[in-house]
C-alpha cells in the first residue's frame, strides 16, 4: 500500500478509476449496436495522432484526440451509409492509422519505449496536467452517457424507431462516435490504445450475464470497470506488471468467474425446481 503514497501512483490510480467508470458507460451502447471492436479501430487511428504530436512536439494526447475524433466521424459516416464497402473502408482506416502512427513515431526523436507507453499504457507517465484532462473529459463522458441514456438507448436498440420518433439520430450517432474517440485517447496513458476497447466491452459482457434491464446492466458494468481498473493498477504497482494488461486480465477474470458461477447457479436452480413446475411456466418461450 505504501506505493500509493507517491503522487505519481495516486495520479495513475485516480486516472484509471475515472476511465474504469467512463469506458463501460459508453461501451454499453457500442455493445448494443454490435460495434464492439470500434474502440479498437479508433485506437489505431489515435496512434497516428500520437505520432504526429511527438513529431511536432505538441501534446500527443491532444493531437490524438483531434485525429481520433476525425477518424471516428469518418467511420460513423461510412457506417451510416450502410454500403458493403464500409467494411473495407474501416480496414483501410484502421491499418492506415497504426502504420501512420508507427511511421511518425519513427520519424520523431521518441524511443520505442515511448511508443510502448501509448500502446499498452504506463503508470509513470500520468502528469498532473494529464490527470486534469482525464478528469474533465471523463466527467463529461459520464454525464453525457447517463443524462442521454433514454435517447441513446433508443437509437442503439432500434435506430429506425428512433428516427420515426423524430430523434436527431445522426447527431446522436456522431456524439457516440466522438465520445468513443475521446474515451480511447484519455485512456491511452492508463491502459494503452490496444487494450482500451476491452475496458469498454468486457465489463458490459460480464454484467449482462446476470442483469435483466439496460439500466441495471449499465450500473453493474460501471461498477465492474471501476473495480477492474482499481485492482489492476494496484496489482501493477505491487507486482510490477504492465498496468493495461493487468486491468484487462482482471476484467476478463471477473467475466469468467461470473460466467461459471452463473452456469452453476442456473444448473442448481433447474434441479431444485420440479419438472412439472418448469413445464407450467408459460412465459419462457422464445420465438424467432
Amino acid at each position: 500500500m505504501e506505493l500509493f503514497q507517491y503522487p505519481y501512483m495516486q495520479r495513475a490510480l485516480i486516472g484509471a478509476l475515472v476511465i474504469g467508470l467512463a469506458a463501460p458507460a459508453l461501451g454499453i451502447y457500442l455493445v448494443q449496436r454490435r460495434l464492439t471492436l470500434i474502440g479498437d479501430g479508433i485506437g489505431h487511428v489515435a496512434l497516428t495522432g500520437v505520432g504526429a504530436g511527438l513529431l511536432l512536439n505538441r501534446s500527443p494526447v491532444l493531437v490524438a484526440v483531434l485525429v481520433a475524433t476525425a477518424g471516428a466521424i469518418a467511420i460513423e459516416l461510412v457506417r451510416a451509409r450502410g454500403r458493403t464497402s464500409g467494411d473495407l473502408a474501416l480496414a483501410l482506416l484502421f491499418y492506415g492509422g497504426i502504420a501512420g502512427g508507427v511511421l511518425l513515431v519513427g520519424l520523431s526523436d521518441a524511443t520505442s519505449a515511448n511508443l510502448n507507453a501509448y500502446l499498452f499504457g504506463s503508470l509513470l507517465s500520468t502528469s498532473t496536467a494529464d490527470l486534469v484532462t482525464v478528469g474533465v473529459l471523463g466527467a463529461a463522458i459520464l454525464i453525457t452517457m447517463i443524462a442521454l441514456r433514454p435517447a441513446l438507448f433508443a437509437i442503439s436498440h432500434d435506430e429506425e424507431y428512433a428516427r420515426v420518433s423524430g430523434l436527431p439520430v445522426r447527431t446522436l450517432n456522431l456524439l457516440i462516435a466522438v465520445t468513443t474517440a475521446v474515451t480511447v485517447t484519455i485512456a491511452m496513458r492508463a491502459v494503452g490504445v490496444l487494450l482500451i476497447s476491452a475496458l469498454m466491452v468486457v465489463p458490459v459482457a460480464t454484467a449482462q450475464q446476470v442483469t435483466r434491464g439496460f439500466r441495471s446492466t449499465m450500473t453493474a458494468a460501471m461498477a465492474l470497470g471501476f473495480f477492474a481498473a482499481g485492482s489492476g493498477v494496484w496489482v501493477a504497482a505491487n507486482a510490477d506488471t504492465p498496468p493495461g494488461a493487468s486491468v484487462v486480465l482482471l476484467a476478463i477474470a471477473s467475466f469468467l468467474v461470473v460466467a461459471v458461477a452463473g452456469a452453476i447457479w442456473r444448473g442448481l436452480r433447474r434441479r431444485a425446481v420440479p419438472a412439472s413446475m418448469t413445464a407450467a411456466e408459460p412465459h419462457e418461450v422464445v420465438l424467432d
Partner: protein
Amino acid sequence: MSTPVITVEHGAVGYDGRPVLQDVSLTVTAGEVVAVLGANGSGKSTLIRAILGLVPLGAGSITLFDRPLRQFRQWQRIGYVPQRLGAGGGVPATVREVVASGRLARRGILRPPGAADRVAVDAALHAVGLADRATDPVSTLSGGQQQRTLIARALAGQPELLILDEPTAGVDAASQEAFAGALRDFVADGGTVLLVAHELGPLRPVISRAVVVHQGGICHDGPVPDPAGHHAEPDHDHVHPHGPDEPAGLWSN
C-alpha cells in the same frame, strides 16, 4: 368531411434503380382503420416505410397531417410499430424500458422522464396486457408478447395515428386477440390506423377499408376483400366511402 391524415400522390419508390412502387396514390382520413394487403414482395411494407420517411420517395409527394413529409416534425402524433424487435447486441432491456422509449417523441431527449411519462407507460402496458411482465427482459417473452411490447411502445407516446408493419405475423392467438382489443380501444378513442398485413384474422372486424398492393401498384381500394380469395381480384376497383367522421381527439393533447 374528414380531415386527411396521410396523403400519398403518385408516389414512386425504387431500390438501386429497381422500381418497387409506381404511381401509388392513397388517402387515409381521421378515424379510419386502413389495412394494406398484398403478397410478399408486393411493396406493401415499402409503402408504409416511404410514408414514415424511412425510404426516400423517387417521385410524387407524401403529406402527413397537412404537412409535406419533408417538413413534418410532429412525430409525437405518429406511433410506429415495426415488424419485429431487432436483436441488437444482446444487452438486456426490460419490457418497461423498451415501452418507455415511446415517450421520447413527446418528451424530447434532454428532459428526464416525469410522472406523466410513468402514467402513460403504465397505461400502454396495461392496454396490451403486459403490466405483469414490465420488469422482465424482453428477450424472455414469446414472439407475440414482444410484438405487444412494440405496440405498447407506440401507444405510450399517445399518438393520433398508428402505423403498423405486419403486427400479427407469426403471433399466437392470445396475442392477436389482445392486439385486436388494444386496437379497438385506440380507434374508439378517435385514433387513425394504417397497418400492413398478410392476413387479418381477428383484426378483420376492426378494419374499415382495405388497400391491396400488387406488383408495385394499388389494385384495390375499398371494402375488405373476401379471405377465401386470399387476395382481392385485381380488376376490383370499387371505392368505398370514407370511414366514420370521428375527430382525432382523445389521444392528442
